[in-house]
């Protein structure tokens, strides 16, 4: 769950979306993932060299400026109000940047069997996809998959980490990998 400071920051962002300085994302970018270069894996494919400094049309901005991660309560797959706020911003960004497509990765905490967590993560990814589509993003721009408990954001075996691992992460790119 988000803390009070984050909630305050997010509600302010809703009033002035573009100008708002977003809190640091709760999840570190998955650049250490050894499978980052494979297909729909968590790969950063934005162009950091060609764009104008501060451009919002980058995957990096989507991750840190818009917020690419939503969190779920234990064993839940329904979107919280906080999650809906993040996804509303994601949908707006995706609407403004029609050349980007998205892959939504669903994740689960480590307690639970491997197979059930894969299915649980798929439900979470699908919940995000449905919300984005309901906000007007074309369905064929969004694909989903689940990593179950294979790719935790945090590695401790306590609720503080589990809360950050029950998540869906939206990865955007402009290379057509999500189409």
């Amino acid at each position: 769950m988000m803390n009070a400071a984050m909630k305050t920051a997010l509600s302010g962002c809703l009033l002035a979306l573009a100008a708002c300085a977003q809190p640091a994302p709760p999840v570190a970018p998955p650049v250490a993932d050894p499978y980052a270069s494979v297909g729909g894996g968590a790969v950063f494919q934005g162009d950091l060299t060609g764009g104008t400094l501060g451009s919002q049309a980058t995957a990096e901005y989507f991750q840190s400026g818009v917020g690419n991660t939503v969190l779920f309560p234990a064993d839940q797959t329904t979107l919280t109000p906080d999650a809906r706020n993040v996804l509303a911003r994601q949908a707006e960004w995706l609407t403004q940047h029609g050349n980007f497509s998205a892959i939504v990765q669903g994740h689960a905490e480590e307690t639970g069997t491997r197979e059930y967590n894969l299915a649980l993560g798929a439900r979470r990814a699908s919940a995000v996809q449905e919300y984005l589509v309901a906000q007007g993003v074309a369905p064929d721009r969004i694909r989903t998959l689940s990593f179950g408990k294979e790719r935790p954001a945090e590695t401790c075996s306590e609720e503080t980490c589990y809360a950050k691992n029950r998540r869906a992460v939206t990865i955007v790119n402009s290379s057509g990998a999500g189409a």
Partner: protein
Amino acid sequence: MFRKLILAPALLMALSVSTGVFGTAAHAQDTPLRIEITDGIIEPMTIAIPQFHGTPDLAAKVRSVVADDLTGTGLFREVPSDSVAKAASFSEAVSYDDWRTIDTQALVSAEVTQNGDNISVRFRLFDIISGQPQGDGMQFDARAADWRRAAHKIADQVYVRLTGEKPYFDSRVAFVQETGPKNARIKRIGVMDYDGANILWMTDSSSLVLAPKFSADGRRLLFTSYDSGFPQIQVMDVATVTSRALTVDQGSMAFAPSFSPDGRSVVYSHEKGGNTDIWLMDAGSGAQRSLTTAPSIETSPSFSPDGRRIVFESDRSGTPQLYIMPVEGGEPTRISFGDGRYGSPVWSPKGDMIAFTKQIGDKFHIGVMRTDGSSEKMLTESFLDEGPTWAPNGRVVMFTRVTPGGNGQPRLHSVDITGRNMRPMKLDFAASDPSWGPLMP
């Protein structure tokens, strides 16, 4: 007189088995030496496995594997045989009185000889209490490279004769090796002898792979791969280590595959639009159809050994529970009713039991129950135990035990279905998702 035992020779491994006409004749026994495996067993049977005759180094290695197999069951305790004078040859008569003085109940005598690339192993088992051979002498011929298999065959014969159970030592286990940090694990599939020896790597580390499952004949492996970027099912030919995709639909996920006993069908989880159901695929034609169509999660399907029913996990009741349905699909019957969450059910080789993962509170257990849900029994308890797989004789279950924390690691463990003899596998790396293959021919 000698009773001829004809066992099918192995085609691929060139390991042949024949009854040796040697030594003294075996006597028919009315009451064979027998250890009964029950919940109440406390005292292991004492067994002497003195130095094997024949080619010295090889004989010592074979003897060590035989002893490890037998004592590893927890059913046998090896008696040091130093105090008994070594027999001059394999064919020398047994000094029953000498063995009785050191409280030996059973004696394994063997001879291992190497001729170039081939070895020949002869063994006999003696009931020291009644003072006679137990069963016929046997001879195994094998390639020298297969000396461990020959040792497992001897140990299996001893195990069968002393327990009345079916053998399982000469078998292999597929698994996933895990390296790297917890948030970026590198995984590859391996196959090893049941005791951790002779490891073969079946995939490189380029793709995330999960949960290999042997076919009933041990010649193929099913597994889930992220090779395409999305979880899909692949099938591998074990002998040639070549694999191909069974599912390729990138609009959905396919995972948790398992073979039917005849190897012609694959049952698996198919996800579409966030909903996961059980599907069945013809392994030859690739034709697929759904067996469940519930909005709940249905996963971890496992066939009954007669191929007529499928046990799986579903959260249609609100929490994950175990259900059984006909292979044609249709209304499933719930079989788990205890507190907690049930998952990863696997049908026993005998067909009478289901092993499963159970989560209660902050503990995980490996448990077994009868197929009607009765006689539920927990075999283990830890922070995280999951994914049981049955030994080919249905007496032992192997599973994954994960330790907690940022440096937590998965390790393979095995436990007798009585709940006794919990043991970590002797592996010097982290591993998960074991799948126990069939007894080798």
